[in-house]
């Protein structure tokens, strides 16, 4: 195994970082967040970057999960709004063989999986199908507020199916929710006899692939947010004086910074290792993804609290930017399944005894604690 970015990956990360430093700053962010409308950013971002991770033959720019993880990391690093990008990136594999819809996704039209964002995607509760269309409610759908279409898990007569549903129908009702973290959005979505088309994919394996992607990309998001919290905390410790010295010279402050640094570099090591493992379909790839999600996002919330302590009272205010990343890291812990849920999945796989029958799947892991 070689842990090293290719030259193309290095160049991609650099270009993206450059672009983001021009497109995002604290003032712009607060404008989008206060208005509750980040579509201006989402549209310009999609124009240049939405094709990453989608094969060139489908109109994308190519690249795999390593490139998508770099994208997630750098978006989080500047707290860029990313619900639309993440939801679309996760849902697009379900649209295999539907070039027009993939093209629209590459063009910046949001597609979202109709599943509660508090669960592992493969543990989504499917809607009931029927002659009169799809009916049911799903709470807390990532980017449910801006999606133009939904990929919907449906309990069919012969097992799980995936359908595509146009969000513009009258039978689709969307109620946005208000998150502390304003860089992502959730909505409650109700279908009341919505027209749908069945997708010609293996629903179970697509949901499993989506789960692995979600795990890696949310972990990568925490990596980016944690790196920025570390940078902010270290900068603050180098300029803030108390008792006549910089607070960064206090050992307690140093050790707090070191503990975040350990978390950040462990996360960096694992995010890209895991992305490559999933992309190259290593035997333990699904476990790697689960472990990365569980470990990195849990540690991310600890880093957030440590960074807050390092900042003292100022970090606790609305006007300081730390709160943006603090909230982002905290949301990631539960987003698409808590560490507990992912750990339960790992335990299912590892501790399956000889007497058990089925191969364990990424299912049934909906516990919230």
């Amino acid at each position: 195994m070689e842990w090293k970015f290719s030259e193309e990956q290095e160049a991609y990360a650099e270009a993206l970082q450059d672009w983001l430093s021009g497109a995002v700053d604290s003032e712009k962010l607060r404008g989008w967040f206060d208005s509750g409308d980040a579509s201006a950013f989402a549209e310009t971002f999609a124009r240049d970057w939405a094709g990453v991770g989608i094969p060139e033959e489908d109109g994308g720019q190519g690249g795999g999960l390593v490139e998508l993880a770099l994208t997630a990391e750098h978006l989080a690093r500047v707290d860029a709004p990313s619900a639309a990008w993440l939801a679309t990136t996760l849902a697009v594999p379900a649209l295999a063989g539907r070039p027009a819809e993939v093209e629209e996704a590459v063009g910046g039209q949001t597609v979202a999986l109709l599943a509660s964002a508090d669960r592992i995607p493969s543990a989504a509760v499917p809607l009931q199908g029927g002659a009169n269309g799809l009916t049911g409610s799903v709470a807390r759908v990532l980017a449910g507020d801006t999606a133009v279409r939904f990929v919907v898990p449906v309990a069919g007569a012969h097992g799980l199916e995936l359908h595509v549903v146009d969000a513009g129908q009258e039978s689709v009702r969307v109620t946005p929710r208000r998150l502390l973290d304003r860089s992502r959005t959730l909505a409650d979505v109700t279908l009341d006899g919505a027209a749908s088309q069945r997708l010609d994919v293996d629903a179970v394996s697509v949901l499993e692939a989506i789960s692995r992607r979600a795990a890696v990309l949310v972990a990568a998001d925490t990596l980016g947010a944690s790196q920025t919290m570390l940078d902010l905390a270290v900068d603050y410790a180098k300029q803030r004086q108390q008792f006549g010295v910089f607070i960064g010279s206090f050992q307690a402050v140093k050790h707090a910074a070191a503990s975040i640094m350990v978390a950040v570099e462990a996360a960096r090591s694992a995010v890209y290792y895991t992305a490559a493992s999933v992309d190259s379909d290593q035997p333990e790839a699904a476990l790697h993804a689960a472990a990365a999600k569980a470990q990195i996002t849990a540690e991310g919330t600890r880093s957030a609290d440590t960074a807050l302590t390092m900042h003292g009272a100022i970090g606790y205010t609305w006007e300081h930017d730390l709160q943006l990343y603090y909230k982002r890291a905290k949301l990631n812990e539960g987003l698409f399944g808590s560490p507990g849920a992912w750990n339960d999945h790992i335990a299912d796989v590892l501790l399956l005894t000889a007497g058990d029958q089925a191969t364990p799947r990424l299912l049934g892991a909906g516990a919230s604690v």
Partner: protein
Amino acid sequence: MDFSERPDEAQFRTEVRAWLSETLPTLQWPEPPELEDKVPFWRPYQTALFEAGYAGLTWPQEYGGQGLDERMSSIFSEESAHAGAPERLNTIGEDFAGPTIAHFGTAEQKEKYLRRILTGEDIWCQLFSEPESGSDLASLRTKAVKVDGGWRITGQKIWTSRAQLAAHAILLARTGGGERHRGITYFLLPMDSEGVTVRPLEHMLGEAEFNEVFLDNVFLPDSAVVGEVDGGWKVTMGTLAFERVAIATGRVNTVKEIRNLVDDVRSRTDADGNPLGADPHVRRSVADLWGRVHLHQAISQRVISGASGGEPPGEATSIGKLFFCPLVEDLADFGLSLEPLNDQFDLEDEVAAVGTGGLAAAEHEAGPQDQGHRHWLRLANQARGTAIAGGSTYIQRNIVAERILGMPKK
């Protein structure tokens, strides 16, 4: 070690319980959630307390207090919490400013301020911290310049809770008699003085829990000084000791919070309809928090018994905050964890506020859980703030190591 109550204590408890059960229903319930709306709700209650002889239980009788000991006071607190009494809005007045004035103030100051704290007429705030002087309080820069008959004060204060409601403030300023803690004087400031500007400062949930206070050439007469000119540090240490006792015995009633959590867990099911109380992880968490609350209660009782015996604040008082802050944080975080992503919704999210974990589409009655999400969210946030305020956790640990364990400063 004695759980039995003296006859006078038992009688006091009976009387208090009767009074509370009679008085509380007369208030204009419900208690408003926002701080500023609470004032007109709280004030008549405080007046009633005063008139019934339940305000300032441990204060001297000549200033309207009752001259009782901390054990009696603690009985009153227990019964109040049990009966669901309103939030105390004037903790700074009752717990720090008042006792400081009673201990260090002039006869005139005591006469002028103390009774009005107890009657509910005056809320107080504390103007200590400054933007450049947080943990290092002695580095404060606000200046007091001597003028005829008094002082002119200029500077900036920050992290001032309830400045927008307060009639008076305890204030530290540099009077120039020496370096650091040797040149500080302790003043009493009417908040309506000319030159005082209050600007709200929002915490990370977007609520103005505290304020910045700008002092622009504010005049204070000589009679506003507490203790000696340039001798304010000694008075300050007194105030901080009163604060530590208040924190150690618990600003947040952790017994009440864990009872609420237990009730919550007992009444809920998880996403699959199984009782939450059957989830092994939830069970361990509840039990662990219950156990920590038990320890906190024991620490508080020890502090109260020590204070009643007139002993100087000892080990138990010093560790109170270090034990208490993470406990409140974990209680609140656990309260939020009982519904999916519940800790992630804004105060303004109406669905989370209703607390069913359900859909926006569902029909709800605003029931007793209506404040659940907001309560835990505010508490989780406030606990993190408390860990910083009044001497951060780092500073508290230094104090324990240096002052109690005698470890070398340098």
